[in-house]
């Protein structure tokens, strides 16, 4: 009787110990997974271990100011390529990026060093005035930029941003194809990461916060 209860209590103790150890182990591996998720590509953000410095380009923003390489320095820039006659992907993305911007402003200290730039690949229809109306509707801080074909290609090429404008003279609603990726350029104007759809503001905000902390720590 006694022996049985002793055995039982030993068994119970080992079960409890095993459970505790398992708990500790799970917690530890969770932390490890989390820290790895910060660094490794996932379905939302892909980080480039060796960010590529961008080279000179020149576009024009919605206030008719030059938007060149210098405008990317000192700020984290979220870049998205599209066109204003786009009914589905562009409004969906810009609305989500507007929420992401608010999320970052709320949760990341010192987040004023960010900018969101919509690059129109359809300069034929997207004038500076039209771009201003369009981007500021989604967020008052958003910038709209464009240029001629060669000027757009100069930046898009460095990011491998695919687009194609099937411009047909006389045709009002010619098709435009463009990448749905959001490109992240760091304050040293280096191509640092991408976000791929389905995009959601909270995840972008969370990932960006971690990245910014990592980069901030490196700088000091």
């Amino acid at each position, binding site marked *: 009787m006694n022996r049985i209860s002793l055995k039982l209590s030993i068994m119970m103790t080992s079960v409890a110990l095993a459970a505790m150890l398992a708990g500790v182990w799970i917690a530890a591996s969770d932390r490890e997974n989390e820290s790895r998720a910060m660094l490794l590509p996932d379905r939302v953000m892909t980080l480039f271990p060796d960010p590529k410095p961008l080279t000179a380009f020149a576009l024009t923003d919605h206030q008719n100011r030059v938007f060149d390489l210098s405008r990317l320095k000192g700020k984290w820039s979220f870049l998205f390529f599209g066109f204003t*006659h786009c*009914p*589905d992907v562009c409004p969906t993305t810009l*609305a989500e990026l507007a929420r992401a911007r608010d999320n970052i402003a709320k949760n990341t200290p010192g987040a004023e060093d960010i900018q969101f730039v919509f690059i129109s690949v359809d300069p034929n229809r997207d004038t500076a005035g039209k771009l201003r*109306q369009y981007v500021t509707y989604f967020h008052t801080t958003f910038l709209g930029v464009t240029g001629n074909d060669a000027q757009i290609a100069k930046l898009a090429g460095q990011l491998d941003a695919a687009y194609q404008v099937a411009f047909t003279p006389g045709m009002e609603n010619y098709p435009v*194809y463009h990448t*749905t990726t959001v490109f992240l350029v760091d304050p040293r104007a280096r191509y640092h990461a991408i976000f791929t759809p389905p995009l959601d503001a909270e995840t972008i905000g969370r990932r960006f916060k971690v990245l910014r902390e990592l980069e901030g720590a490196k700088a000091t």
Partner: protein
Amino acid sequence: MRWRRTVFACLVLALTPFPAASEEAVVSVRDAWVRETPPGMTMMAGYMALRNNTSRPQVLVAASSSGFETVMIHRTIVKDGMAGMAHESQIELTPNASLIFAPGGYHLMLMSPKRTLRAGDSVAINLKFRGGLVLAVAFEVRK
């Protein structure tokens, strides 16, 4: 004698067609909405959840609205790393299943609204199915 009258009444009820109710039952539409656009923009997109409540395929063949110059059934497709739009001439709804029109996928492309649509407004769009069924659906404009 009384039961006969009751049976007759029941038969009449059972045989009386309720077109609205039976049409609703063939395909139901939920969560129909249109995204509000920035001022001056003429391209809008409509989204919804369709459900085929029958055991036969139902085919959406067209959409129209007096609120827009043109309405087309489109699908966003991604090819060679680029998103573009494909015009769909018809969409078959699987029996007893749902089909969702959502951002990044199927959508109604709504061109040139006749009046400015703002969040909270409602706009009617007719969905035409093969066999003659037409559903008039109220789409809510959302930001």
